[in-house]
């Protein structure tokens, strides 16, 4: 069995190649933006992208790798660019990409349905394309050769034109490495009130994260700090959910937390069914009192 890995980040390249080894005996890597790492796949393809071009314009190069290698399975790092590049190649093969695969059982793969409310077991009837994170595999070492083949750039007929790029500085801690995480939700009425959550974080040696609406509908928190099915997946020792209702899309991001602590003024909020310790009360009173008593 042969696996083609389409990855963008350095970690993604290494982790998916290591994972691919667990389901395939031959691993090929294709990278569009930047040079591929060597020593992690049996063969790597450097899919050329001229400076200043949009990554999506390199789809012909990815297609060329697919056509040359005829892989049994394509493992795609789930980035927006790869969703387009991998999705286009899948479409041409008359296949669908199965997204965010969490586990493999031969050709049957499992992912989430309704944001984690259920798990869906499914099987691609033809060509197999999966977006997948490293966590779907056992930890393992990536092995390989130094062979790199370059695929020359072919512009698409209707190309995108990249007019500019602006870096967004990373803010906040790497929550995946924190023992204690404080999650703030829409129960906070004002951005300034988040200071209370920060004070609690300081008190308990934790870092602040949030539910998706706080990073998106209002820009109170950076996008890389929201927790849940489309955001971070964490396994801290303790997770504090402050003014978070406990919708499944959020909670799947903390199912592996050792202890879940909830503050919510609505006793019927779903969060309480998923909490170890909860208090039914106004967070504006509970948090200052809790900081004082801890």
């Amino acid at each position, binding site marked *: 069995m042969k696996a083609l890995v389409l990855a963008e980040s350095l970690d993604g390249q290494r982790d998916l190649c290591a994972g691919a080894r667990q389901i395939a005996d031959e691993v090929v890597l294709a990278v569009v933006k930047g040079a591929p790492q060597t020593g992690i796949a049996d063969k790597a393809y450097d899919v050329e992208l001229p400076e200043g071009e*949009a990554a*999506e314009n390199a789809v012909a190069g990815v297609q060329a790798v697919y056509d040359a290698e005829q892989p049994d399975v394509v493992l795609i790092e789930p980035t*927006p660019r790869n*969703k*387009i590049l991998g999705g*286009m190649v*899948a479409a041409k093969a008359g*296949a*669908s*990409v*199965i*997204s965010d695969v969490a586990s493999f059982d031969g050709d049957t793969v499992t992912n*989430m*349905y*309704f*944001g*984690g*409310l*259920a798990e*869906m*077991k*499914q099987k*691609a*009837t*033809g060509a197999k394309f999966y977006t997948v994170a490293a966590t779907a595999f056992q930890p393992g070492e990536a092995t390989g050769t130094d062979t790199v083949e370059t695929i020359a750039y072919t512009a*698409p007929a209707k190309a995108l034109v*990249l*007019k*500019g*790029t*602006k*870096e*967004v500085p990373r803010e906040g801690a790497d929550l995946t490495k924190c023992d204690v995480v404080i999650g703030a939700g829409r129960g906070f009425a004002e951005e300034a009130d988040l200071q209370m959550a920060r004070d609690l974080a300081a008190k*308990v040696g934790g870092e602040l994260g949030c539910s998706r609406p706080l990073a*998106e*509908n209002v820009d109170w928190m950076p*996008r*890389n700090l929201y927790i849940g099915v*489309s955001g971070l997946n964490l396994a801290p020792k*303790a997770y504090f959910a402050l003014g978070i209702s406990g*919708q*499944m899309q959020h909670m799947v991001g903390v*199912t*592996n937390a050792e202890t*879940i*602590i909830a503050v919510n003024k609505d*006793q019927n909020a779903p969060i309480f*069914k*998923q*909490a*170890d*310790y909860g*208090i*039914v*009360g*106004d967070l504006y009173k509970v948090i200052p*009192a*809790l900081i004082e*008593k*801890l």
Partner: protein
Amino acid sequence: MKIVVAVKVVADDQDIFVSGDRSLDYSKARQIISTYDTNAIEAAAQLAADNDGTVVAISASTTKADDTKVKKDILSRGIDELFMVADDSLETADSYATAQVLKGIVDANASDYDLILCGDGSADLYAGQVDVQLAAALDVPVINEVTGLKVEGDKVVVERTLEDEVEEIEVPLPAVISVSPNVATPRIPGMREILAAGKKPSSVEGLAGALETKVEVEDIKAPEMTPRKNEIFAEGDIDAFAAAVAEALK
């Protein structure tokens, strides 16, 4: 300018319950516009208003979506006309299959489109792939994660927000663009819009042929939940709560 927006109608997940055998019980759940498609609808409506355009909504959904309330909800958000294909095989249809149905609707009713907008991902499958599949089927360019759009002649210039960079990209039209929820805040339709929606044209058809699926669904089951202690305190019991928290943090 002619804008198309793709809208999925799904069960409201707040009212989907887990049965004893861990299957999903939809009997209490009403049909709603998939959350992030409301942002795409709003972006389409605003773009049409700013560019002297029209917006049609297209939907590939189950027969439950053929529901007056949800159809009116779609049409009360600045949409001029709705074309729906409804068949129960579309419930868990993969993105290839869904895109083929949407292409059929576009070819038959809106082949003169300039732009097709899709949402960030549907509440059920959240694959973020129908946009790509639809673009491939129609042989037009596609871009995703778009947080802002500006029409410039026969092009749209988009702001695309990725995790650590923001790109400005010029997309030649016609094209398929999927937008992030940030792109526009959905309106809350008033009584007047809802009444007017009832008079707008909408059509619902069945599938023309059998659905051509590429993924076979074997099983849908709720996972076992991590067991939790569920010790819930009243606001007055802050001392006991604080003690429990302190113990857990040790």
